[in-house]
């Protein structure tokens, strides 16, 4: 493009984005259309990708297409395969996108649509996408090494151990909170539970198909699985209407907790091809298709946002969904859509082993994260199209709703029981009250958007079918994460115990497999049970812990990235990773401190425990124990962050003061065999 035309185009995009932000920020009282939110996000992504990611690629990392990548040097036709950048973009996005970018923005909508949207859009451009890009770059130059290995080699062995410990603890909290979302979505929902229960035999059938009957024919097996899945979805509606069958699939949250624990254990010890792989394929297809359809549906109907830009809870900090003020809790509630430490595991996993040219890392690492942020923006839109009264009634337990009733009433966020009953009936449920966790309210928002789109295109609205489709979509890939997470946690535990008892580390030794699986499942199962029986809904305590731990892992990744940049002689550019690291440290420490030491019993674990002291409630002792355990976990996370940052700072100072040689552990330079410019 000619320089003048380019200047005009990018100036136009920038002005359009700024205007959209202006509309969002200045609206007070009037209804805002979702189109403005989409325009603001897309223009920011375009400018961030065109200019900031190019600066990172050219100036900071100095990506070199003449240098052979691990995929070229170690090409084995299986793990290390040079892959087209657009194909790998899809592969990487499917691996990083999970429930986090969908649920986090829905929960953060309690502050209004503006804070969460700003964090999603600005956070990803300056933080999240940078973290993914720098991790991909570091791993790419080190033959696809993992985050833990790089922390050990580039920072020091203590940092490597901290990173591994952090991943293990995060895994346990993550699995508990994701399982809690599924439990809250499926409790007393025969339609939802029947559909999700059917995914197990469908996955087993697919596993047998692609392993035994027609080896490797994943496409065929997945097509059959998808048809059966849609059949199960429709059949679920019929089952829910049968007086004899519906009770078989109607269970309390506690009963579902035990089912989840049993499922997680069995999935972890079964061969991977039997349940994990087929479920993974099903959920990947469904995830990508649904996200694309949701984007088209939003563009077709451009729904108005009923949630205001800011709610009173942003400043009061007494939100019924979760306690705490906008700062710091908006920034840990929305983790995955803006910045997610978990991505560092994917960016230092399979993706760097498949990159054909170094310059492809820009599209895959930076661009992939922008797409994840866009998913978060769509979730925010879906949540904010709900009537605020409905949103708070769905996401709040009766106890929390009673505490916040005065503020809700003053803000006009009220809803009558009749409206909730009518909505539940329309969605094919008996009740939608107190369905905390974000998934059901997202499903209602998505169902309304899908129904609006099908209606606009001349079809029937089919609200109940769309609602259960959305629940199935969310539950399916949450269960996939539970499968893989429990298994990965099991491997890590086996490796750790294997240092003192080598036999335990053998993944083919079944007593070790069973014992380690049981320990991991017990770990997340305990937190899940604690959340289910929590009078405030569990999300109030578990989601902030998850957010803190996820951002902690991002801090680990950014510490490694900053260390590598300094050792590469690019200390003048170290701010690109050091600035988001500083922000995350401030946010994580503030949130952790408030969760532990706040005098507000709704916010602080210790204050809550103190408020229960002397209580006659039979649950008091258990709740006090939970508060103390949560305190321990939060303090442990904060300690890990502190130790890691201090050890990294020491390493930076030693290198910059020339007291230690700046040795980077990159793979040796080998010139590519590909023609330059291909």
């Amino acid at each position, binding site marked *: 493009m000619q320089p003048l035309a380019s200047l005009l185009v990018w100036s136009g995009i920038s002005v359009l984005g700024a205007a959209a932000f202006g509309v969002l920020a200045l609206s007070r009282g009037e209804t805002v259309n979702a189109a403005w939110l989409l325009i603001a996000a897309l223009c920011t992504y375009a400018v961030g990708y065109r200019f900031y990611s190019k600066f990172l690629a050219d100036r900071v990392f100095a990506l070199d297409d003449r240098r052979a990548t691990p995929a070229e040097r170690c*090409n*084995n*036709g*299986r*793990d290390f*395969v*040079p*892959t*087209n*950048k657009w*194909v*790998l973009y*899809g*592969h990487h996005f*499917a*691996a*990083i*996108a*999970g*429930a*986090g970018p969908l649920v986090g923005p829905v929960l953060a909508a309690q502050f209004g649509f503006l804070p969460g949207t700003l964090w999603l859009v600005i956070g990803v451009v300056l933080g999240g996408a940078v973290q993914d890009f720098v991790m991909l770059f570091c791993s790419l130059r080190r033959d696809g090494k993992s985050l833990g290995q790089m922390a050990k080699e580039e920072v020091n062995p203590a940092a490597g151990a901290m990173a591994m410990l952090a991943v293990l603890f995060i895994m346990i909290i*993550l699995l508990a909170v*994701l399982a809690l979302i599924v439990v809250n979505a499926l409790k007393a929902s025969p339609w939802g539970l029947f559909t999700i229960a059917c995914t197990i035999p469908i996955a087993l059938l697919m596993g047998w198909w*692609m*392993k035994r009957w027609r*080896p*490797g024919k*994943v*496409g065929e097996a997945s097509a059959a699985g998808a048809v059966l899945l849609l059949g199960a979805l429709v059949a679920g509606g019929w089952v829910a209407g049968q007086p004899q069958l519906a009770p078989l699939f109607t269970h309390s949250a506690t009963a579902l907790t035990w089912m989840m624990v049993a499922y997680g254990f069995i999935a972890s010890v079964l061969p*991977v*091809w039997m349940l*994990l*792989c087929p479920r*993974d*394929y099903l959920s*990947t*297809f469904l995830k990508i298709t649904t996200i694309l359809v949701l984007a088209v549906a939003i563009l077709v109907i451009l729904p108005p946002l009923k949630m205001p830009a800011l709610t009173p809870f942003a400043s009061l900090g007494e939100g019924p969904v979760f306690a705490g003020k906008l700062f710091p809790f908006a920034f840990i509630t929305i*983790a*995955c859509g803006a910045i*997610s430490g*978990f*991505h560092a*595991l*994917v960016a230092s*996993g*399979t993706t760097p082993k*498949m990159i*054909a040219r170094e310059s492809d890392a820009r599209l895959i690492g930076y661009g992939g994260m922008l797409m994840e942020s866009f998913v978060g923006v769509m979730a925010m839109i879906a949540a904010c199209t709900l009537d605020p009264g409905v949103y708070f009634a769905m996401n709040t337990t009766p106890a929390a709703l009673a505490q916040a009733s005065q503020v809700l009433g003053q803000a006009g966020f009220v809803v009558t029981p009749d409206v909730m009953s009518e909505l539940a009936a329309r969605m094919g449920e008996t009740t939608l009250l107190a369905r905390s966790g974000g998934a059901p309210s997202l499903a209602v928002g998505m169902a309304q958007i899908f129904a609006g789109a099908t209606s606009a295109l001349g079809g029937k609205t089919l609200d109940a079918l769309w609602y259960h489709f959305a629940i199935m979509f969310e539950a399916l*890939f949450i269960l*996939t*994460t539970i499968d*893989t*997470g429990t*298994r*990965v946690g099991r491997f890590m535990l086996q490796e750790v115990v294997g240092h003192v008892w080598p036999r335990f580390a053998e993944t083919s030794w079944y007593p070790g497999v069973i014992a380690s699986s049981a320990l991991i499942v017990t770990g997340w199962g305990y937190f899940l049970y604690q959340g289910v029986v929590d009078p405030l809904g569990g999300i109030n305590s578990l989601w902030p812990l*998850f957010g803190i731990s*996820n951002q902690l892992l991002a801090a680990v990744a950014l510490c490694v990235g900053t260390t590598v940049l300094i050792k590469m002689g690019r200390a003048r550019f170290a701010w690109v990773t050091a600035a988001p690291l500083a922000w995350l440290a401030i946010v994580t420490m503030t949130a952790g401190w408030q969760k532990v030491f706040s005098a507000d019993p709704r916010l602080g674990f210790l204050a809550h425990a103190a408020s229960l002291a002397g209580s006659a409630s039979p649950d008091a002792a258990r709740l006090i124990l939970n508060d103390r355990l949560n305190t321990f976990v939060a303090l442990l996370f904060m300690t890990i962050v502190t130790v890691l940052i201090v050890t990294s700072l020491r390493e930076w100072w030693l290198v910059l003061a020339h007291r230690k040689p700046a040795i980077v552990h990159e793979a040796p330079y080998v010139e590519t*065999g*590909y023609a330059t410019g*291909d």
Partner: protein
Amino acid sequence: MRREIDGGRGRRRAAEGGTGWRHALRRMFGMPDYEGYLEHCRSSGHPPRLTEREYVKEFFDSKGTGSRCC
């Protein structure tokens, strides 16, 4: 050296037997691609080490260690 970037070479692969999109989809969704493995062995000048069943088994086993994000 022969170029060997898997997927996204629709026109060239189509001329060679119409497998370009199949390769691309398999890579994108993380499916086993035995044809791609055989092609890699051919271009590298060594016989395939694995049968299709062995390849599929190893592929699925290695998938169990990968991370899925939250």
